[in-house]
């Protein structure tokens, strides 16, 4: 436990705090509580998706369909709201969670039963889910004026000064922290990604474990679908296009090993926060949005280089130890 605090998470907290300090030294307004709440709320969807993605990557898979899942579920929720304006929000939420889970389960089944590489499966469903939105909506938009006030109001409603969207991100983080650190399934995620071969010999079903990771990721994507559409009060084919790469980036920056089996949920959340702060701060500082992409990209490369270096150092230590033992 102590080790976890001296590692990537602590480093990221340090980086985020110094980033905030740097921005505050020039633009003190940025660190005013109200603005920080805005930044956090703005980053909430990224955090929620990064939670699911982190679990999938832990099992040595990847889910590229999260943004398409989000957009499709969002469109379904929006159209449902247009068709039945009286439908209560809890029902909408339930539909979003269930549909997201179903779309995730579809990925999971393909990976589990057919053994297709996850990158291929989710690249396929990325396109399929987007296509379905077009088929459903005929390419039409669902605009703000068509949505009910309750529908668009829910994520913005404030409780104790924080919007519901932010609270949901916090709640999802807590749930995932517990699932990953304190349940047999969470332990299985690490075992399956860390050494699938050994996991089989231990009696774990690798495919089934990966299936559940995809279901989890899909469920969170579905939840985000409704929240996204309601918050921006618009639904169309192209919402959140390309967002999956930002999600993967948050995980990688957060120290989730792309080869699986290593990393923490907290790391993924911090990775998402780091990206969120950069994204929100650059316009304030007056740097062109094009630089945003370059800076995010640089952060990813640095993070990966960091992961690789940490791994190599560990390898050398093992060798040294083996040498010592051989001599003794």
């Amino acid at each position, binding site marked *: 436990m102590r080790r976890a605090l001296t590692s990537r998470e602590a480093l990221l907290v340090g980086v985020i705090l110094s980033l905030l300090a740097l921005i505050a030294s020039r633009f003190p307004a940025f660190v005013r509580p109200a603005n920080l709440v805005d930044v956090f709320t703005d980053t909430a969807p990224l955090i929620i998706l990064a939670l699911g993605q982190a679990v999938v990557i832990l099992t040595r898979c990847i889910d590229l369909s999260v943004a398409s899942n989000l957009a499709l579920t969002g469109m379904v929720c929006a159209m449902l709201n247009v068709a039945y304006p009286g439908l209560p929000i809890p029902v909408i939420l339930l539909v979003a969670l269930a549909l997201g889970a179903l779309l995730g389960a579809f990925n999971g089944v393909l990976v589990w039963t057919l053994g297709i590489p996850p990158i291929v499966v989710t690249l396929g469903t990325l396109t399929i889910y987007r296509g379905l939105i077009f088929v459903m909506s005929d390419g039409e938009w669902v605009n703000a004026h068509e949505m009910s006030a309750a529908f668009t109001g829910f994520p913005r409603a404030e409780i104790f000064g924080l919007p519901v969207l932010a609270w949901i991100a916090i709640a999802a983080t807590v749930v995932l922290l517990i699932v990953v650190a304190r*349940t*047999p399934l969470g*332990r299985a995620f690490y075992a399956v990604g860390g050494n699938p071969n*050994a996991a*089989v*010999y231990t*009696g774990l079903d690798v495919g089934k474990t990966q299936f559940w990771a995809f279901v989890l990721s899909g469920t969170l994507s579905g939840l985000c679908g409704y929240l996204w559409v309601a918050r921006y009060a618009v639904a169309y084919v192209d919402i959140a296009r390309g967002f999956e790469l930002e999600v993967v980036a948050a995980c990688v920056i957060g120290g989730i090993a792309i080869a699986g089996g290593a990393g923490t949920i907290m790391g993924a959340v911090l990775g998402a926060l780091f990206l969120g702060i950069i994204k929100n701060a650059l316009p304030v500082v007056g740097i062109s949005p094009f630089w945003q992409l370059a800076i995010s990209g640089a952060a990813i490369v640095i993070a990966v280089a960091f992961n690789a270096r940490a791994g190599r150092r*560990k390898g050398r230590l093992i060798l040294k*130890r*083996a040498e010592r033992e051989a001599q003794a």
Partner: protein
Amino acid sequence: MQQLAPTSTAGHSGDPALTLSGITKTFPGVKALNAVSLELYPGQVTALIGENGAGKSTIVKVLTGIYRPDAGQMSVDGQPVRFNTAQDATETGITAIHQETVLFDELSVAENIFIGHAPRGRFGLIDTARMHAKAAEILDRIDAPLDPATPLKDLGIANKHLVAIARALSVDARVVIMDEPTAALSQKEIEELYDLVERLKSEGRSILFISHKFDEIFRIADRYVVFRDGEHVGAGSMADVTEADLVQLMVGRAVDQIFPDRPHATGAEVLRIDNLAHPTEFEDIDLTLNAGEILGVYGLVGAGRSELMQAIFGITRPSGGTIRIDGVETVIRSPADAIARGIVYVPEDRGKQGAILGLPIFQNVTLPSLGRTSRAGFLRLAEEFALARGYADRLDLRAAALDQDVGNLSGGNQQKVVIAKWLATKPKVIILDEPTKGIDIGSKAAVHAFMAELAAEGLAVIMVSSEIPEILGMSDRVIVMREGLIATELTGADLTPETLVRHAAGIRSQAPERAAGVVQ
């Protein structure tokens, strides 16, 4: 022994093409090769013989530039050479044909033959026409009826061997290493391979032929070299030895390790297997196992031992036969089934199949027992620590802390973690596959002592091992497997190094004075 003298001893045709002397290679905890020497003569076939783990594969890797020896000299035609890469070895004229051919399935025959040294045309691009013509010429020379343009994946194993040989000829290899080349061939294909070996000999190439099959060694080899436990223990002309002499050299001196003394009294039958069969790996397997017994399973690599154990453990599905546990017939569909019924399997390859190196020790230990250490679906870390602590103490696990990653432990301690993981499930039958392979002597003794302790507590133990001393020292009973069948079952006075090797290698008759210890 005037090794570098210009004229060599009688029986060899000329100077050695390749000489190794004092070659030593150490891995953590194991001396794989200890000051071994090897000489290969032009136009002669030298058979390299030894038990599993004698160092045969290591010397092949040294010869082909994959491993760099810690000490020793290598010379080709009297000129000292050093290989830093596999490319160096190829350029010096040494090539290897492996048991499982190391070729590229998606490339064509010609591309496989010339990969790395393809004929170049203008702008340094590969001259495909010339490559195909040269490939056809080489294939013609070895009477291989293959089209250079065929993708390799369309060929059978025998033809892939031909491609590997053609590749050896394409670099004009002077030394050709054949590592169990007949293991996967039919009788007719084997005959064709022998013809080819004769042809390579007549062209003056040196051949190092690694094989477990005595009949073929006596048929095609001119000289022999025997390795045992990483040491060179004998060499000479095939004309001067008998099979019995070679077996004697391979198994060597009496058992010099100390094994725990244990009673051979055993309890009730725990496991009974009748007629178990697998579509490709084994058939007709009958075996019984009693509580408190250690059953040794001996055989050469590829005899089907691990495959049988994997079927019992539910990793693969058998095609027929029955498994009874405590007299009740059971169907085992997955490792989870096997574990639930009290059978556990400690696999051979710890790194790949045993421990999860990135997880802490205690999490590795409790992984198959999480049902017991969790409550209402939530893990209880204190419970896990307590469970892991108990087995760590019992196994004398040397680690700074139980939340240390297993990847930071030595091989012997990793093995203890894997064994602790299985004991924590409270099994009835424990299958140990090469339990002491690659670990140091001290840890070996600890594993042996612990096995004896487990058997004394009434656990039924199956120990798959290629180490004869270990088989002899630990087992109450031994079954020997050969080519997917149980060759024999040995107990008591019949259990000698000679009988084990003879049954494993399938040597039928023996000189009368040696037949006393053989069970027919």
